[in-house]
């Protein structure tokens, strides 16, 4: 444990996880918004929108996140000139957020869409049969019921997102995986304790998160 009693190392450890948390937080919000929009497109009656949603999902689900993040840096920033901050780290951070968001949004979209599909068709029909409009049907009847069956999968996606944040390290952000690599490089005799501390921190963050979402999903589950 001598590795972490060194204040420099400890600070590095903390800052690594802070980056992970910040990446996760911002990307979770963006991915949720984009994902829901995409899901709305995929169930919309407009063919081009449906096609766009499907293409998005297919492209991002089939590309390694490492490449997506790569394109955010080398495509958006280096080629298209999208600079999000004067600060180097912040710029990488925001590019990472974009990459994580567009990638995760594909999974959110699928979760929401299959959530909508778990609402029995009779519910939408009954809503239309009493004269509710499309928007009302969606808003008052379908989405509230879908939201509840979508919570557990969204929980898994959030957990995966948090772990995926480590991949932003490939474009130079000193998040936990880079920090761990660094510590292991300079403390070859303590590989196992170092790994256990990092893995343990992730486990301590994410296992309860998983149980929380499971609990929430159960609590809100619509009894049929």
């Amino acid at each position, binding site marked *: 444990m001598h590795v972490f009693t060194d204040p420099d190392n400890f600070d590095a450890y903390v800052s690594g996880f802070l980056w992970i948390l910040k990446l996760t937080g911002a990307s979770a919000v963006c991915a949720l918004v984009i994902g829901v929009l995409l899901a709305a497109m995929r169930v919309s009656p407009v063919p081009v929108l449906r096609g766009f949603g499907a293409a998005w999902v297919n492209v991002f689900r089939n590309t390694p996140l490492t490449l997506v993040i790569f394109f955010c840096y080398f495509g958006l920033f280096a080629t298209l000139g999208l600079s999000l901050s004067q600060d180097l780290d912040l710029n990488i951070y925001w590019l990472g957020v974009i990459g994580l968001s567009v990638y995760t949004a594909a999974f959110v979209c699928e979760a929401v869409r299959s959530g909508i599909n778990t609402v029995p068709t009779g519910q939408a029909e009954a809503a239309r049969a009493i004269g509710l409009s499309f928007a009302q049907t969606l808003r008052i009847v379908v989405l509230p019921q879908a939201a509840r069956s979508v919570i557990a999968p969204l929980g898994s996606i959030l957990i995966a997102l948090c772990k995926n944040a480590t991949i932003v390290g490939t474009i*130079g952000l000193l998040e936990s995986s880079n920090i761990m690599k660094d510590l292991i490089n300079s403390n070859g005799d303590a590989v196992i304790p170092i790994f256990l501390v990092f893995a343990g921190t992730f486990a301590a963050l994410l296992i309860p998160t998983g149980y929380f979402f499971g609990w929430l999903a159960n609590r809100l589950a619509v009894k049929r």
Partner: protein
Amino acid sequence: GDSDEGNSGTGAGGIVGKAEGQKKLVIGVKADQPGLGLQTGSQYEGFDVEIAKIIAKGLGVEESGIEWKTTVSANREPFIEQGTVDLVVATYTINDERKQKINFAGPYYVAGQDLLVKSDSTLTGPDQLAGKTVCSVTGSTPAKRIQENYPDARLQQFDAYSKCLPLLENGQVDAVTTDDIILAGYAAQDQYAGKFKVVGSTFSDEPYGIGLKKDDTDGCEKVNEILKTAAEDGSYKAAWDATLGKSGTPAPELDTTKLTHCGAA
């Protein structure tokens, strides 16, 4: 603790014994550094690779008996310690921290940290880096040196130098930093011909060594002998000329008086 559990001891367990007994060696080299260790398909080429071949030959191992293994900066010590490779010739700077874990033969070349900039750049040294963006590899010694000694420079890190170069070309970074010899390798690549220059004011000494197991003193001494011979019979110069020398840089002198004591002292 002491690594004397059978397979990793001195003598028969060292590279000399292995080379004699099996006529085979596993050598770790870089795969992504033009001019030094670059993998093209199953072939590796570059100065480090040539040096490795000279050493293998000196140990009595044919080229066909060499198994090349790609190493990256971060996995060189573990590879040696765990016996994944017998030797590492991979832009491997000799320093005290590393000497704790492994043994170094050499140096076969003394590099120094330098900057690669666009041909028309006015940068002349690290002191002018304040506010400029420098690109290097995550967690590498050059990156750390910039962080510590030139904190005003903005440091962009990637997992490979090859990612720095397009940014330098675009102007998104002002300089790429690492050992001059590595930079020279990139500058000499066809596609960048004439675009970049190595600034030429090194700000560190990076004696490149050949890594082997900590307790393989015999092997280390043997390698040093081989290097001495290579300096004398011209094979060292030939290795340079066939690789980094192609860009016109004359071969350096190999100062055989500086060879290590192989942990004997």
